[in-house]
């Protein structure tokens, strides 16, 4: 039966395939024309790209310059004031600070926090967004608006009540798990995951709802008529069709979690067991902020993974599969 659903001759999907095929053809033709007609557009794009990159490029150069030069001359004078060094990176990567050693473990923590904290809210939000868009119920609109409005609740205001709950409920359970499986430390990622997940939900539901609600209704109705259950519709139609939206939102959620400091400060306990990279990098500039030159290198160390994720996931949303493609 489940196979049936996939093989259904759904009008929307058929349409979609054609569009995709045409898109390829159109692209080639378009490319030739583009270069003839939109020289100004290309120039404008180039200018924006350069302006947007210069600040980052400057800091990239600076991160290879010795402290003395960073403090006294601009990076654009690199030819008048030559001198390149890996010291900043050495400080960031290998500084064997006894209080916070081993950057590697922070790095693993960051990954271990960010991957589930991206998957959990996306799945839960996709489910909720599907319910809001395709299951009719009373007050659906009002509830959706309410959740939308919750985006504005400042995270700072939610930290203390949440921490109280975690302390009284979650921590005893964690202690017990630690007793049973000593491999798992008492201080686990669970708090951080939950916190990130629920703080992300309103925005992710809002974003996903916009895409999921634009899936042509014929597609979903056709599946239902064929007897697909709600979960089948969700897994076999809604999710695959929303892949571009999910991928782009996943990138941003991943980055927000990766770069988060506030949630980590409160819920990680600050030990090498849980604390992510940001927490370590924030301390690099030292007690009185005097070593800020190290942050130049720190910025790039923490940039690597988000860029990899971006490169890895961007292929999903450049392919013209966006939900709503067949609208109109």
């Amino acid at each position, binding site marked *: 039966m489940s196979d049936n659903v996939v093989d259904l001759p759904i009008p929307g999907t058929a349409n979609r395939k054609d569009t995709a095929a045409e898109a390829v053809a159109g692209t080639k033709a378009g490319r030739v024309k583009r270069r003839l007609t939109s020289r100004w557009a290309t120039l404008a794009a180039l200018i924006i790209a350069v302006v947007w990159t210069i600040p980052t490029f400057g800091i990239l150069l600076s991160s290879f310059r010795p402290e003395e030069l960073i403090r006294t001359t601009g990076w654009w004078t690199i030819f008048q004031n030559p001198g390149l060094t890996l010291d900043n990176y050495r400080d960031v990567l*290998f500084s064997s*600070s006894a209080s*916070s050693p081993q950057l590697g473990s922070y790095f693993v923590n960051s990954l271990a926090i960010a991957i589930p904290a991206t998957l959990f809210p996306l799945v839960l939000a996709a489910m909720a967004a599907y319910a809001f868009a395709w299951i009719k119920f009373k007050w659906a609109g009002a509830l959706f608006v309410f959740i939308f409005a919750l985006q504005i609740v400042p995270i700072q205001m939610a*930290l203390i009540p949440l921490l109280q709950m975690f302390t009284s409920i979650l921590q005893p359970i964690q202690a017990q798990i630690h007793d049973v499986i000593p491999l798992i430390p008492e201080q686990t990622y669970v708090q951080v995951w939950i916190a990130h997940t629920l703080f992300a939900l309103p925005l992710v539901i809002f974003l996903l709802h916009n895409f999921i609600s634009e899936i042509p209704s014929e597609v979903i109705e056709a599946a239902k008529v064929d007897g697909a259950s709600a979960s089948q519709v969700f897994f076999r139609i809604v999710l695959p069709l929303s892949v571009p939206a999910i991928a782009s939102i996943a990138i941003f959620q991943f980055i927000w979690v990766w770069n988060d400091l506030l949630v980590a400060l409160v819920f990680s306990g*600050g*030990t090498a067991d849980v604390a992510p990279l940001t927490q370590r990098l924030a301390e690099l500039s030292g007690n009185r902020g005097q070593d800020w030159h190290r942050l130049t290198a720190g910025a790039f160390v923490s940039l*690597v*993974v988000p860029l990899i994720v971006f490169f890895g996931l961007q292929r999903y949303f450049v392919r013209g599969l966006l939900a709503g493609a067949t609208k109109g």
Partner: protein
Amino acid sequence: MSAKQRRRLFIPIAAAAVVGLALTGCTGDIAAEETADTDCADYEAYGTFDAGTEVNIYGTILEVEADRLNESWADFEACTGIDVIYEGSAEFEEQINVRVQGGNPPDLGITPQPGLVADLARSGALVPAPQAVADNVSEFWSEDWASYGTVDGTLVGAPLMASIKGYVWYSPAVFEENGWEIPATLDELATLTDEIAESEVMKPWCVGFASGVATGWPGTDWVEDMVLRQAGPEVYDQWVNHEIPFNDPAIAEALDTVGDFIKGPANVNGGLGEVNSIATTEFGDAGLPVLEGTCAMHHQATFYEGFWPDGTEVAEDGDVWAFITPGVEEDAAAVTGGGEIVVAFNDSEETVAVQTYLSSDTWANNRVNIGGVISANTGLDPENASSDLLATSVELLQDPDTTFRFDASDVMPGAVGTGSFWKGMVDWIGGKSTAETLDFIEGSWPAE
């Protein structure tokens, strides 16, 4: 999702994992120092504990300083079996409130703000200092210092380290070359300032107020120094405790005096710009022109010793040296300074043991021996100080004739001490009048 797509998802994740593992491999484990031959005689009094006993300390101290802190109790850990876990954060002031209110406080906290200690104590988060700590405090600390760990008559914490504010950094060579003398009184300092300004060899002062979120604090240090020296310790205490209003004439006079030094275009801001550059000059960079010969003096605490570029000789006949901002009269030894207070959030045996150790002369000597800091602990041997300047400072702190007052902004309530006072100084250096500035700060003092 097709197998191909799955592979596409897998590759970035795998790549990230590989990078992570590579980093792990690079850093590796840092082997614990060999502690087998530690002499445990000094630590017998603290008892021994089961393996796995932990004490968590949360504080403001970071990086190198945190390493040294860890080093300072390594022997204690080896001998007592207590595992002391230190966590430092630049966001300590905010986070400690979050953790306490969230029901998840550390065992011990280290903070440089008596004002915060008072807030925490009054909210019921702290336990009173145990007898052993109280004994150490009465044995090793002056009354002035003990009072900063005392809230409403109850001792809640012992001081830890100390720094002296109000040093004036200068270049001995430049002074000698131009025939300038170290001023012995505040008037002489003013005369010297004018003399340097008129000579047009260089600007007398360079000043920087910028310090990220805490921008403005170097200004408060100036004011505090002047209040203590001109109005005296009694007025200083009244000011800190809000027994006189913030816009009292005595404070206005102090602020105007600061203005005479650093608000005149002829006096600042050697090589860093005009008066308006003060607010955005990083405090850490502000003193460096002293070395370049574009300004003669820079007002900053002992810790500025660590800010000079590598290879700078800090000595009476070296590249830079410092004198204490003089008093109204000669040899009036009144200094402002700062330090940390160690407070406890519970009174378990191991917490008490660590807390007691930190308040002892053993710890003070251990820590100061490692270098970079001093303590006001009277059991401290000045010989242990790691530099001439620090040794001088220890002697100054231990001298019974010295009047010591804690940095006022750290003692005042947070709304003022880490809020309007900073902001007020920034606005003031930007051109706001003394009266307006002080009225603004007074208006922000929280109602009791």
